[in-house]
């Protein structure tokens, strides 16, 4: 198999056996930094993996290896947009959404902005969740939303902005064949004036 991959087994002897030992140690350390982060998160994860990660955090952080690699897992979910409505200094109103497929081009730019909506929406419970759950989650998402609001107000030159997250309904095949209309789930994220957003 090694020959297939373009290597020459006849030349595997090292002139520096000590160097080979050091290289082996470095490789093992690197492999630990590759394997342990996805073991340790996202949830569910074991206490053992979390403890193993602690001494590796400097290396994992330095080498940008702290990833979970759960692409489209456990299930592909619905997409999210953040919709905003802004009051301008002349009293007019302006609206938009993040991302906006008509404006956010090229596609990679769209995707980088799309991640803002996806990552914030992941922290926001549905509007009908228990109040305690919503209050606890607010501590996580509101500081991020304030930053987004400040960015939008500065970019558009507005006075106040109201944001809401939209979870786009994921229709079943039968619903698509029936060509019905689908209602998206909307969750308010609050209104932010310039002074509030810039705190």
């Amino acid at each position, binding site marked *: *198999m*090694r020959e*297939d991959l*373009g*290597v*020459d*087994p006849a*030349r*595997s002897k*090292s002139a520096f056996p000590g160097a080979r030992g050091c*290289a*082996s140690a470095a*490789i093992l350390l690197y492999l630990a930094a*590759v394997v342990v982060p*996805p*073991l340790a998160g996202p949830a569910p994860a074991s206490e053992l993996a979390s403890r193993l990660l602690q001494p590796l*955090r*400097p290396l*994992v*952080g*330095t*080498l*940008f290896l*702290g990833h979970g*690699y*759960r*692409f*489209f*897992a*456990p*299930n*592909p979910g*619905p*997409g*999210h*947009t953040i919709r905003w409505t802004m009051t301008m200094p002349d009293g007019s109103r302006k609206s938009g959404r993040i*991302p906006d497929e008509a404006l956010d081009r*090229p*596609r*990679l*730019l769209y*995707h*980088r*902005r799309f*991640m*803002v909506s996806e*990552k914030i929406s992941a922290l926001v419970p549905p509007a009908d969740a228990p109040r305690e759950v919503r209050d606890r989650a607010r501590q996580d998402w509101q*500081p*991020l939303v304030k*930053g987004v609001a*400040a*960015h939008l107000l*500065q970019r558009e030159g507005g006075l106040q902005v109201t944001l809401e997250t939209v979870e*786009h309904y*994921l229709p*079943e*095949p*039968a619903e*698509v*064949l029936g060509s019905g209309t689908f209602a998206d789930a909307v969750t308010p994220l609050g209104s932010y004036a310039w002074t509030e957003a810039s705190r």
Partner: protein
Amino acid sequence: MTHVRPAAALGSAAFDPGLARNAAEPARRGWLADWATAWNGFWFTPADPLPLAVIRIATGLILTWSCVVWLLDPDAFFGDRGWLRPDQVWRQNDQPWQWSVYFAASSATLIRVVAGVALVAAILLTIGLATPLAALVSFVGLVSAANRAPLNVFGLDDTLGMLLIPLIVGPAGARLSVDAALAGPGWGRAGGPSVRANVALRLLQVHLCVVYLFSGAGKLFGASWWEGTALWGAIANDRYRTLDLRGLAGHPLVVNALTLATLWWEVGYAALVWPRLTRRLWLAMAVLVHLGIGLAMGMMEFGLAMITANLAFVPAATFARLLRPVTSPLAALATSPGIRPDSP
């Protein structure tokens, strides 16, 4: 049988404790020696750096494009009034370990300088000029961007990081590069098989297996993957959609087959990409899956980056054969003896 391997001796002595005790010591040494031999053969056998050069060029092109896109809106991504305020970055990543040069870039000008340097480094990496430095600076640029703008990153950035570390470790500029063209006749040795090239390729191969293993294992939690409907979830998601495949709504068995093929390809990758009999099939599936994601879900850069990582499993001889129409005329025209035709 005149020679009995220690492991076999231990197995046959399993019913006799006394004999097992006597045989145990040499058996253990043999097993450990086998491990050491396998380890050394796997990591420290010299390899042709040609695959690494191809991976360098593909990675450099994708990274260059990513840098251009960061530069389309640098203040929004990296500025004080961007999508994520600097004092809130800790909410999205593991501070203080996740560093970024942008944390020290206090003005719009400095932000553009840092992003510009990252772009230049990515271009130099692509063409293979000052390759070791270009690879290192490209990595610093990638990580700085990802750690300063964690709200804007996704699998593409994880994959580019996975690709860049082997390019720093190995002789990525030894072939198909300006470095090789500019070097004197002595470069021939540097472009030959080396342990560093093998370590770099092995790091990428193993890392890629880890990525697919966890990605596949994560999917096993999801009912839609077992039910064979997960791909419908991707098809019906209009936020990702760049190719309308909703016509598959009337063909549930096709959706089932595509979903299950994707799941079991990913779950089996770490084991079945190594044997010669299954490697081509698994690599072909990788191309199909990632091109499919790229075309249908608008994530072509991510798809191409993952395909680039899969190139680590393509033999050097295959690249030499495929690139011969390009490299042979160049070698004939070159005045520098540093450019050599590829040998199969």
